[in-house]
C-alpha cells in the first residue's frame, strides 16, 4: 500500500531543499499529470488565473513518487498561509488515507522557534490532527496521520534556511563563500538608496545575499531553487552536518513505516 505524505513549506526554496533529501528515498519527480497518482489529482488547480491575478504562480505542489511512497511538497507562499494550505488540501483529498503531514518553516529572528511552533499549533488545532507536543518530534497516533513540524535551522535557534546553506557552502564551496562574504561586507551602502537596501537590511538579508551571490556563480541568471536542485548544497559530504542530519532524521521518522 502506497504511503501518501503531504509536506507544506514556507516557500519554493524550502521545497527544492527538501527535494534534495528525497533523492535518498529513490523518489522521482512527477512532471506529467497523466503519471500522477490519482490520490493527489484534486490538488491540481483547474482554474487560471488564480484570484484574477495573471501574475500569480499556479499553486501546484511538487509530486515525488515510487512504488511505495508518494509525496506532495507544497509551497504555502508565506507563513500566514501554512495552516490554511493544509486545511484546504485536506478538505479535498481523502484525508483519512494520508500517512503523514509535515510542516517545514523558518524560525526567523522576530519570534523564537518555540513561539512560532506554539502559534502554528494553535492554528492547526481546529483541523483535528494529532499534533506533536514538541518541535521536531513526529507524532504517531494510531488511526490518524503522522504529524511533525520542523523549524529551520534546527528547531532551537533563530535563523533561516540560509543558515543551513551557509554551513553547506563552508564545506563544498569555501572559496565562493569567502569571496561572497568579502563582497557583501565591502559594499558601500552610501551609494545605495533605502529602497535599494530594503531587503538587505532585513534580519536575514545579509545571509540571503551571500547565498544568492554563490548561486549566481553556480547558476548565473537562475533562481536559488535551480542552484539548490543542480549543485552540491546537499550531498554525501554535507549530510554529515548536524543540522542536515537533524532534518534527515525528521524526514526518516515521518516517511518510513
Amino acid at each position, binding site marked *: 500500500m502506497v504511503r501518501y505524505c503531504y509536506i507544506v513549506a514556507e516557500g519554493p526554496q524550502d521545497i527544492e531543499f527538501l527535494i534534495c533529501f528525497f533523492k535518498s528515498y529513490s523518489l522521482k519527480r512527477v512532471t506529467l499529470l497523466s503519471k500522477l497518482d490519482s490520490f493527489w489529482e*484534486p*490538488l*491540481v*488547480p*483547474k*482554474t*487560471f488565473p*488564480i*484570484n*484574477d491575478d495573471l501574475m500569480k504562480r*499556479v*499553486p501546484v505542489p511538487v509530486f515525488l513518487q515510487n512504488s511505495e511512497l508518494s509525496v506532495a511538497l507544497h509551497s504555502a507562499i508565506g507563513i500566514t*498561509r501554512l495552516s*490554511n494550505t493544509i*486545511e*484546504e488540501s485536506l*478538505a*479535498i483529498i481523502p484525508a483519512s488515507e494520508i500517512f503523514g503531514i509535515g510542516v517545514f518553516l523558518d524560525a526567523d529572528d522576530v519570534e523564537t522557534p518555540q513561539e512560532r511552533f506554539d502559534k502554528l499549533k494553535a492554528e492547526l488545532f481546529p483541523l483535528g490532527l494529532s499534533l506533536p507536543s514538541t518541535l521536531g518530534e513526529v507524532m504517531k497516533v494510531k488511526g490518524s496521520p503522522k504529524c511533525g513540524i520542523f523549524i529551520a535551522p534546527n528547531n532551537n535557534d533563530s535563523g533561516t534556511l540560509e543558515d543551513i546553506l551557509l554551513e553547506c557552502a563552508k564545506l563544498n564551496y569555501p572559496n565562493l563563500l569567502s569571496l561572497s562574504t568579502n563582497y557583501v561586507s565591502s559594499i558601500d551602502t552610501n551609494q545605495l538608496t533605502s529602497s535599494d537596501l530594503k531587503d538587505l537590511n532585513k534580519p536575514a538579508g545579509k545571509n540571503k545575499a551571500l547565498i544568492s551571490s554563490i548561486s549566481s556563480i553556480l547558476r548565473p541568471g537562475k533562481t536559488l531553487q535551480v542552484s539548490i536542485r543542480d549543485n552540491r548544497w546537499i550531498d554525501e559530504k554535507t549530510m554529515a552536518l548536524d543540522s542536515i542530519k537533524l532534518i534527515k532524521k525528521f524526514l526518516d521518522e515521518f516517511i518510513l513505516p
Partner: protein
Amino acid sequence: MSQVFDRLQISGYRALKSVNLSQLGQVNIFVGDNNAGKTSILEAISILCNPLDPFQWLEVSQRRLYLGRSQLMTLRPNIEALKWTFNQKIGASNDEIYQAEILIEANGTAPISELKAKLGEIYGSGVEKNNQKSFEKDISSPEEEVSSPEIDSVRAGLELEIEVNIDSEKIPSGQMSLFPLDQKREIFLFWENERFVQRRRSKPIVKNATIFPSYSSSEPILERLSQIILQKENGKNEVLELIRSFDDNILDIQILSTPTATATLYIKHKELGLAPLYVFGDGFKRALVIALTLLTIANGVLLVDEIETSIHVSALGSVFSWLIETCRRREIQLFVTTHSLEAIDAMLEPQIATDNVVAFRLNNNGQAPQRFSGNLLHRLRSERGLDVR
C-alpha cells in the same frame, strides 16, 4: 443565525443510507458525481416540509419519471416509483415481506423535528372487470392490458405510515390550529392502477418550493402570475419589486391578448418599450420564475435542482447575487445542486457574504459528505483554483 434547518439527518431515503448535514447555512450548495444523491436530498427536504400530504409523496416519487415533460401530474399512484423513494435492500429475496423505512431528523427554526415513514406492501381483492375496462379506456395505454383474470383477482398496494414530531412552540401563532398535537400519525393506502382520493389535504409544515432544471422552458409563468394577481391584492407589485431588484429597467408586467394570439406576458422595459417575455434573455426568464416562486415561500425553503441550467455563464453572477439577497431578506433557506464550477464561483462573488454559504460534496462510496464552509470554499476556489465538485 439559526436557519429553518440547521441540521438534517436523512436515513433510508432512496440510496441515502444515512447522511448527516450539519451546520447548514442560508445558502447550501450540493455538489458531487452523478448518482451521489444531490437530487435525493432536495426531494427528502421537500417531503420533510410537507410530510403529511400524501400528494407530496406521490409527486416527489414520480418527479424523475416526468422530468422534462410538460405534464408533471399523473392520474394514479405509481407503486414502483413510491417504493423507490425508500432505500431498497439489495439482494432481498422475493419471499421476504417488503418493509422499508425513512427517518429524517431536523434541528432549526422549523416546527418539525422528526419524520418517520414506513412503507409496506398490502394486498386487496381485485376490482370488477367492467370498472377495470372503463378505467383503462380513459387513461391507460393498450400495452398495459396484460393482466390475466387470476392476477386481476388480487391487487397490490402500499401502506404508507407517517409519523412526525412537531414542536408546537415553533409554529407561527396563526397556524396553531393546523397542527394541534406534538406528534401526528397518518396512514395512507395506495393501490396500483387506482386513483388516489383524499378528503382533505394537509398544509405544509414548512413553506417550500422546488425549481427543476426543466422549468425554464416549461414553467407556466403566465398561470403563476395570474394566480398571484388574483389571490393577493398587492401580488403584482410584489412581483415587480422583486424583478426590479434584478433589472431596474422593468416598469411593468402585463398579460395581453390579441385576436390572433393567445394571452402573452409582456414586459414594459425602459429601453425596449412593451415587449413580449420571449424576447428577453434566459437569465431574466429564470429570475422571473424564481421571483414568482419566492413570493409564496417567505420564511420557508427554496430547493433548486441544477441551478446553472439555462442561465448563461455571463448572467450567473447577477442572478445568484439577486437570488441570495432576496432569500436573505425574506428569510428563505436555499438548497441548490450544481455540476458547474462557474455556478459555485458565481455564488462566491464578492457581493455575497461567504458566511451565508455552505457547500457539501456528496460521494457515492458511502462516506460522509464533505462540508465546506463559505470561507474555505472561497479559498479553495480563489486562492487555489481547485475543483470542489
